[in-house]
């Protein structure tokens, strides 16, 4: 299966039981707005943890209807995050979302050894883009979490992302390992890692996907460009997942897609017990809504 736009995620969600999403430190306007919209659209069932008075004020000011919603009053931010994480740890809910709390605080709780959401896997970020100029959704990793992944990290990031895409219905997602060039160059570490990842995939050491790399960005997303360069590749021009060499490249690509190409984006954190919606404050409410939608689609 291939997803063409964000709307296709709704089809996936519609076929599953409704997932419970816990919004930690819920007194945040954009997050609250996105979650309530997703609730109204029957995508998730929200549980809000945070400062009840703050939540009510925001709702009043913005005309949000919170009638019938489960709200747990915990004005202390750290405590509200801890409570949310514990709730997920004990399987009372399915998705964690960050509200008005710093990323580091949230991640500290997620990684807590006693009651956190560790699985032993590396945490990684995945973003799904709907761009008019590409024929389907394209996933990009890692643009926000892992700064300068080594080969071992890249393997973990690919595994996280591939099992996520498998859950979305992609049986063999096409993974392009990005470089500045499609040739192997001993002076470009990313191209060497790309060759190793390809070989591990050929040898079934990374499974349930097709990996090729190094591919330059143009060969990865344009078949014409790949043909022009004479690249024979199952992935070139039809990439489902782009693996970034490091966070700088990834972050710039992410932002240029959003700002220059007016792409729609949804993103979540993978590698924990449950999907985590961890959008930044600068993300639009639409991006937050799409991320909630994505988390519901990806939830087991």
């Amino acid at each position, binding site marked *: 299966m291939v997803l063409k736009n964000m709307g296709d995620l709704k089809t996936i969600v519609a076929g599953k039981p409704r997932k419970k999403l816990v919004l930690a430190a819920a007194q945040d306007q954009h997050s609250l707005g996105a979650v309530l919209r997703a609730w109204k659209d029957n995508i998730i069932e929200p549980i809000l943890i945070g400062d009840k008075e703050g939540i009510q004020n925001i709702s009043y000011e913005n005309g949000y209807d919170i009638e019938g919603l489960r709200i747990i009053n915990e004005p202390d931010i750290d405590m509200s995050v801890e409570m949310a994480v514990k709730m997920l740890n004990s399987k009372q809910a399915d998705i964690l979302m960050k509200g008005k709390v710093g990323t580091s605080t949230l991640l500290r709780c997620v990684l807590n050894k006693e009651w956190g959401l560790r699985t032993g896997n590396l945490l990684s970020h995945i973003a799904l883009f709907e761009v008019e100029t590409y024929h389907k959704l394209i996933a990009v990793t890692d643009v926000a979490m892992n700064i300068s992944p080594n080969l071992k990290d890249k393997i973990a990031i690919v595994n996280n992302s591939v099992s996520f895409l498998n859950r979305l219905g992609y049986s063999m997602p096409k993974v392009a390992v990005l470089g500045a060039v499609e*040739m*192997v160059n001993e002076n470009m570490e990313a191209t060497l890692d790309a*060759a*190793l990842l*390809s*070989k*591990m995939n050929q*040898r079934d050491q990374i499974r349930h996907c097709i990996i090729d790399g190094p591919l330059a960005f143009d060969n990865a997303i344009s078949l014409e460009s790949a043909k022009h360069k004479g690249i*024979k590749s199952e992935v070139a021009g039809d990439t489902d997942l782009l693996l970034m060499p490091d966070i700088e490249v990834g972050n710039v690509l992410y932002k240029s897609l959003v700002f220059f190409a007016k792409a729609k984006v949804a993103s979540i954190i993978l590698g924990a017990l449950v999907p985590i919606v961890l959008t930044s404050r600068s993300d639009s409410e639409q991006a937050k809504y799409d991320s909630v939608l994505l988390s519901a689609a990806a939830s087991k």
Partner: protein
Amino acid sequence: MTVYFFLQQQVNNREMIKSLREMVEKVLSFKRKRRIAVAWAHDPNTVGAISKAVNEGFAEAIMIGRSAEIVKTCRSQGVDEKAFHIVVADNEADASARAVSLTREGEADVVMKGLVGTDKFLKAIMDRENGIMKPDAVLTYVGALEIPAYHKLLFISDPAVIPFPNLDQKIAMAGYAIEMAARFGVAKPKVALIGASEKMSRHFENSVDYAIMCKMAERGQIKNCIMDGPLDLFLACDKKSIEIKGVPTPVDGDADILLFPSLESCNPFYKGLMLFAQAELAGLIRGTDKPVVLMSRSESELSKYYCIALSCLMA
């Protein structure tokens, strides 16, 4: 398409040299003689091998050394020294230098090591001013191995020169082996990069180099071959193992070239096959402007003869 492919394969097969004897026949069919300069030629095995090549008509020999000793060695082998040109040199180093300078000047087509030590011989080959190295070339060794139990010749590298080849050296070794295979009519040889297993492992550094090389071959950075590795010897040379192990590989148990991770793995491989499986090897130093025949002194007369024929094929 399939028919065309089949016909093409028939043509390829017909032109492909599948044994060392066929290699000699090919060289004889050229109807031209290659001139071989032998450094420190008073070695009975070398004299025997050279005289066979001269008698069959594909080589001329320039024997370099102490002339009295060359004559003595020839007579002890029942060879008429008049079949050779003799060039006088006083010592091993001088003989090596003369052999190399004769090829540089175009008086000879091949340099061959006689009774001189390998180090002195290579010193003359690699001499910056007077040697015959290609600029910036990697000096290595490629052999064509004939194994009765295998259906064609197997080209191997490097059993003799580079102890632990790095990535660049491995790429060069593959290039030379591909070039040699082409002379044997193997246009797109299957290159197996040999390891202990087909899996990638950080415990085996060579597997990292191999993965990089495979991608380079895929991207056309290493040309004219089908490359895969790491592969163990079974997956490289035995189709049944492919079925049993279920590892899809374009080499498909039908390797033409085996690239070994180290000299110490390649050397016992061919020696074991020579000792226990009636294999024969013809090999050459690569990286030089002209072919260089270098065999260990203990090598048989037949091996030396095959090496001479190979040098004539490559010259």
